[in-house]
């Protein structure tokens, strides 16, 4: 029961505080590296390719299937009330406002966040980060910042792809397979979806999630203990913390945006 010793509590509390402080400092550092990072756009472009293009398949396929499922489930519920024409509106609002940003962020954390953490953790384990520091190359600027900004750029695009393929999936199931009238499917969507209230706020959400997931992944990689075990722990923590942060932030953002 050494845990109860006051000095141990104080030690762990102090370490937690130091972790938070270091995280906050790194976050501000990354935000301030906006200019320098974009001056070397080649690095960001490579990361967009790595994070974006390779995530595209899983995002598009997931979006399509979520759309399929929503088409079926939404029809099942709506036809009880005789308003199956509202299927398109149901699918679109759900995807654009909620599922598009959130599911994309969760998938992105699993697909790209883990690889970011593992890559940086292994760079640390291979002492590449220390070598850079010895050569007076700032690892935050050279390694972390391009990945960070690439993640922030990529996330809204992926979320938009997810929502768009989801709507197409809902259209395939609703209009082509079940036989909801195509005209009222689209006119309900166009009548009920607002560009700023729904599409715009969904995009803002996905940008915030882009910051969150990428930052969590980078911080975990950068903080990882330089051992195989440490890297594996850091990768797990990335998925857990990024998912929890995304879901928690989503509630706060939704409450802020849609209660007005």
């Amino acid at each position: 029961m050494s845990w109860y010793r006051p000095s141990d509590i104080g030690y762990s509390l102090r370490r937690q505080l130091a972790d938070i402080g270091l995280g906050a400092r790194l976050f501000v550092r990354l935000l301030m590296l906006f200019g320098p990072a974009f001056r070397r756009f080649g690095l960001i472009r490579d990361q967009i390719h790595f994070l974006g293009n390779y995530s595209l398949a899983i995002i598009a396929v997931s979006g399509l299937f979520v759309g399929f499922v929503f088409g079926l489930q939404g029809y099942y519920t709506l036809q009880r009330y005789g308003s199956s024409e509202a299927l398109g509106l149901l699918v679109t609002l759900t995807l654009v406002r909620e599922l598009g940003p959130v599911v994309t962020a969760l998938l992105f954390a699993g697909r790209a966040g883990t690889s970011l953490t593992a890559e940086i953790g292994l760079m640390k384990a291979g002492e590449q980060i220390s070598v850079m520091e010895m050569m007076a190359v700032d690892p935050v600027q050279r390694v972390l910042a391009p990945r960070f900004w690439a993640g922030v750029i990529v996330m809204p695009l992926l979320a938009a792809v997810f929502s768009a393929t989801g709507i197409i999936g809902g259209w395939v199931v609703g209009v082509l397979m079940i036989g909801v009238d195509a005209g009222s499917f689209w006119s309900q969507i166009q009548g009920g979806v607002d560009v700023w209230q729904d599409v715009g706020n969904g995009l803002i959400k996905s940008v915030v999630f882009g910051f969150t997931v990428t930052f969590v992944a980078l911080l975990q990689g950068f903080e990882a203990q330089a051992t195989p075990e440490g890297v594996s722990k850091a990768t797990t923590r990335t998925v857990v913390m990024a998912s929890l942060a995304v879901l928690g932030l989503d509630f706060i953002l939704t409450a802020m945006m849609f209660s007005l």
Partner: protein
Amino acid sequence: MQRSKIDVWVGLFVLLGVAAVLFLALQAANLLNLNFQPTYQLDARFTDVGGLKPKAAVRSAGVLVGRVEAIRFDDKTFQARVTMSMDSQFAFPKDSSLKILTSGLLGEQYLGLEPGADEKNLVAGDTISSTQSAVVLENLIGQFLYNSASSGGGSQAGKDKK
């Protein structure tokens, strides 16, 4: 060589993302139908706006001619003051009247504008005075119950007299 190949793929990715955003904005949210045509403001007073909301349509003969801009409560007259922005290409006579209508059984509420016969037209800042409030279901049921109760009571009283 390698660089330009990555460029192509990144370009494709970005294009795809932008295409998805455009799809959401144009096909789903119908951004093109947001008209940036000039409008003029009209006011109207209602005793009850029911479920009317800002951005609701103003229709005349079923055609969209404007949108509700704002709904405020006027504590001088204790009425609702509805501000509408009307499409400038349409002008309506001064004695036009407004009704709050519902599209379908459970649909959203909109304003129906019925043109009058006055020679002069409404201009910006005018107030439409002849308005018909929203139909509130509870009031309707209340009236129906009251009417049937009084008619039933009346016949009962008649029987008693006999």
